[in-house]
């Protein structure tokens, strides 16, 4: 279950739960929810080159009622904080949160002395399950976060570790 899922499952059988967890892990529908720069990389991750849909996570739902994972992609301002919280509460349990990008993790480059508008870390608002640092992270990093979330839910990692960065062959 995601850190913030307060509602216990309706039925609880160990074996069934295991099967259901595998189903959940392989069908993480994200919420269509972009805040700033990272949202573009989130779209790129759903795009042709990286294709989130391969892992069953390409079904972006605009309605929070039908989403499983909220990708907080971008800077959360104080004005937006209330909405982020509300969207999270609107999602049905079990639900998960990925904090994508430095702004979502800690306010990022806007975590400054003069800061009067940016929330320093979305974890103050919603419980975060996976953190993806970067400004913005590459789409692979988001995929990796998704695979880690999958591993968290199932208990085992089904996919290989991220391959090392290959130089471009001319």
């Amino acid at each position, binding site marked *: 279950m995601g850190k913030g899922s307060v509602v216990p499952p*309706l039925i609880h059988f160990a074996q069934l739960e295991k099967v*259901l967890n595998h189903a959940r892990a392989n069908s993480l529908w994200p919420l269509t929810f972009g805040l700033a720069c990272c949202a573009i990389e989130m779209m790129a991750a759903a795009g042709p080159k990286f294709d989130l*849909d*391969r*892992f*069953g996570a390409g079904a972006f739902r605009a309605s929070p*009622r039908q989403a499983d994972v909220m990708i907080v992609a971008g800077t959360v301002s104080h004005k937006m904080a209330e909405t982020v919280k509300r969207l999270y509460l*609107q999602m049905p349990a079990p639900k998960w949160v990925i904090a994508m990008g430095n702004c979502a993790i800690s306010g990022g480059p806007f975590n400054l002395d003069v800061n009067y508008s940016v929330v320093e870390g979305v974890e103050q608002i919603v419980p975060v399950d996976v953190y993806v640092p970067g400004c913005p992270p590459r789409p692979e990093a988001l995929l990796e976060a998704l695979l880690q979330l999958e591993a968290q839910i199932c208990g085992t990692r089904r996919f290989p570790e991220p391959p090392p960065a290959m130089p471009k062959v001319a």
Partner: protein
Amino acid sequence: MNEISILRSLLTIVGVSVAIGLNAVFVVWLERKVAGHMQYRLGPTEVGPKGLLQTVADGLKLVSKQIIFPSAADKPIFALAPIICLVPVFVAILPVPFSDTLQGHELDIGLLLVIALGLLNTLGILMAGWGSDNKYALLGASRAIAQICAYKIPLLLCILPVIMLSGSFSLRGIVNAQDPVWYAVYQPVAFFIYIIAITMETNRSPFDFAEAESELVAGFHTEYSGMAFSLFFLAEYSYMFLASAIASILFLGGWHGPFLPGVVWMLLKIYFFLCLMMWFRWTFPRVRVDQMLNFGWKILLPFSLLNFLITAGVMAIL
């Protein structure tokens, strides 16, 4: 009435449920694959071989998710709506013959039953839109009501020539009447308009106003989560299946075809229509509501009426 007929009914119910479920699982997978490949992507690949189990995982997940009732929702209506949406398909699929022998229940007026029950879908959408106390959902529902007026009349006017040609309301009778030549050959205009009309009827893009994502978030099912949402999902794909089956019976000669067994031909024809609808969905932008109404009343209606009159005239002369 005897034991066998009861057994038959039970078998039919089980068979129809399994068929609808399996079909939805497969069609959703197929749709995601088709969409992927039309967009330089792959679609689901990682869950099961070629991602075939993707929909199963989605289904299990949706079933095990919390169902949220909005506090201001009209609870009985909210809860009933997805069921109202889905159940008529089960009934409507009974008189559909999938082959010479495979048919739930032969009915003289099978076609009429299908048309009548096709209307109840809109009722479900209306209930969902009203019951969830959400403005987007309500807008979606009112769009669905407006839509029904635009497509239903051309749809019926396209079916009428087929009924006139075959002289039967029975789906089996219609299939048998087009033994050498399909009605799609006699009635190309009706066939064409029928395809457009069923795209409208099943709320598919480019006519998916009731759930227009970029406008109404998720339209009439904005507030639905988990199982209730999956029922809407199932209903949509079942309606597509039903509409395609009727289309292939009316215009493409049902299970008739050389070499292969009847069921295979029937399924091939059904999936032809399903793929066509997917192809439309992943190519075209959405039409605006008022444009769709104009389109229905100003283009589809005159043409289908004209087609109907010409058919009647020719039949009267011959």
